């Protein structure tokens, strides 16, 4: 059981290529921390630094309170599950799982006991004598997990472990991993590019981009209060709508105008007082697809703040209906109930939920609040 702390950790490769920069992160004991971001954002590098597979250029890394910068991977008491599972193809499942214990010269019966215990947890007891080639993708994934479990490490590291599975299995294994965490109660650090995995698995989510940490928070805070426009757009599916608007301070209220003579929204001056300094300037308005409602279906009878849009496409999915519509100068994605069907060219009268508006600085993408 251990916490993991990174202090100003950077990885700079030969030729100045930045792997990750100034990473400050503390994962407490038994926490499930997910690092998420697009490919090349430095999330895998960060994980490999924690594992000790790569050298930390700058900064300090503590596992369980000990500085481990110079400790080789095998002495860090960690286990890692790789994207391609990294099962040894020439060994049986049992040999794969016991390899680490055998190298550490554990007694035979202890090894046997641990392998069987792990196999039982993962329901792969019947596969122990098979070789990786004879297993399905999901089974290989379980073996990879099992190999990590038998070691009873202080920290589990996962490097995109589900990305080689098909969609259905991925959902299933996601739940397995979640169950495993609550059963083993060990610190886990999990890297993924899939924001759904991040949201569903993490106690704590770290969003990274271009080698830098964008935000560290619990899933709901990340969703409801994204600190940057990047985080807002990365988390959530379909992604948040971004509309370029102009702010006008009208003393009694604040007017938000879509660029290019589009819609106008009136908002309360007290609630949105932080927008006053931006009066006369352009900012980015963000609104999630589910926070836009069609006036007709919403039983709201006001004509105020109506945003007019024309339907350009629709993706009916049964439980919900994703509508793509066009305002004067921007495109909107709206998530509605599955029964709300529309036709191409329909004119919609839309209302934005005013308590769900997000505003971002045009220049640095930071949240305005």
């Amino acid at each position: 059981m251990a916490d993991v702390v990174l202090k100003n950790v950077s990885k700079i490769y030969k030729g100045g290529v930045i792997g990750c920069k100034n990473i400050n992160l503390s994962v407490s004991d038994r926490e499930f921390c997910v690092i998420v971001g697009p490919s090349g954002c430095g999330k895998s590098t960060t994980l490999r630094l924690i594992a000790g597979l790569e050298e930390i250029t700058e900064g300090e890394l503590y596992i369980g309170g000990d500085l481990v910068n110079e400790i080789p991977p095998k002495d860090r008491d960690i286990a890692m599950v790789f994207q391609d599972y990294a099962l040894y193809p020439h060994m049986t499942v049992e040999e794969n799982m016991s390899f680490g214990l055998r190298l550490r010269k554990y007694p035979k019966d202890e090894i046997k006991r641990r392998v069987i215990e792990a196999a039982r947890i993962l329901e792969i007891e019947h596969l122990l004598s098979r070789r990786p080639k004879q297993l399905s993708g999901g089974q290989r994934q379980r073996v990879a997990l099992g190999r990590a479990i038998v070691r009873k490490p202080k920290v589990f590291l996962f490097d995109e472990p589900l990305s080689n599975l098909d969609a259905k299995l991925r959902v299933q294994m996601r739940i397995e991993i979640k169950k495993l965490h609550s059963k083993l109660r060990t610190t886990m650090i999990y890297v993924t590019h899939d924001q759904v995995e991040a949201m569903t698995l993490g106690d704590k989510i770290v969003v990274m981009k271009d080698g830098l940490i964008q935000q560290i928070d619990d899933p709901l805070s990340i969703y409801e209060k994204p600190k940057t426009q990047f985080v807002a757009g990365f988390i959530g599916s379909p992604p948040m709508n971004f509309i370029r608007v102009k702010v006008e301070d009208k003393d009694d209220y604040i007017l938000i105008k879509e660029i290019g003579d589009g819609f106008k929204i009136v908002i309360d001056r007290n609630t949105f007082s932080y927008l006053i300094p931006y009066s006369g300037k352009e900012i980015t308005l963000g609104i999630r697809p589910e926070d836009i409602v069609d006036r007709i279906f919403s039983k709201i009878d006001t004509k105020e703040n109506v945003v007019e849009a024309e339907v350009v496409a629709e993706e009916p999915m049964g439980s919900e209906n994703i509508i793509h519509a066009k305002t004067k100068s921007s495109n909107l994605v709206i998530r509605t109930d599955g029964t709300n069907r529309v036709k191409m060219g329909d004119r919609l009268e839309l209302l934005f939920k005013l308590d769900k508006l997000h505003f971002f600085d045009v220049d640095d993408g930071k949240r305005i609040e």
Partner: protein
Amino acid sequence: MKIKNRVLRENINSYLFLLPFLVIFLIFLAYPVIYSFILSLHRVTPYTDLYNVFSDMKFVGLKNYLKLLNDSKFWWSLIVTFYYAILTIPGMIILGLLLAIFLNNKLPGVSFFRSAYFLPNVLDILVVSLIWTLIYSPHFGVFVRFLEWIGIKGFSEKGILGNPRTALPGIAFAMILKGSGFGMILFLSAIQNIPHSVYEAADIDGANAWQKLIYVTIPLVKPIILFLVIMGTISSLNAFTEIYAMTQGGPYEVYFLGEIQGATKVSGFYLFENWAQMRYGYAAAISYVLLIITLIISLINARIMRRKF
């Protein structure tokens, strides 16, 4: 300092793994290239000390190389080597390609044929040469008898290898039969890698079998041909064992630049003779000239093949 530690450890580990190979490589493959040159600038006195043959060396500068320039035997050996290359390389390529094209058909026993043609390749060249000496031998040799049976006479007295006109072609024939399976395997795998659709497109374009060979197959196996030409050149320059076993460089019935020359004395065998006569400095000089010739030929081959086709 800390960072350097890990880099240092990685370096030490790597070199520990590489060490056995590297030591042997440096002593027996890299150093000899330099040492050979040094040796070629010396005269080694023979018979000084049997257990320390190289104890008495005298620096003579480029004398060995100058001597080489006026050595008709050396020039003759290069001519023979060139002739040997011309005799073997096209034969091996054509036979190898033909066999590959034949074997690329659905026939019973294809894999048997493949093994049969490839087998001679892996057998000891000295033994194969001895067997051919027997086959080629005068009076009773089975080849000579076969020739007489079909009405070709005149080989009875000296056999194939005793006749200066037929000795080298005889050796080349034996080596082509031994070696063409190698080309066959290479051509076969290259031909099988050509997509079937290319041939179908040629069919639709109205190409006949011959045109498909010339316009489709050969251009696509061009890299193999280049490889075989280079390999063949190098192995001609390396040719020794077959000459040693079959003719010992003879028969000595050819005149070139006023001296009697061995009809089959390729440069490799001439080099060996100089070594056997303990002219180590001179032999080293020959080696160096051969090395340079090899490099030049490899370069020219690569150039020509890139431009043509």
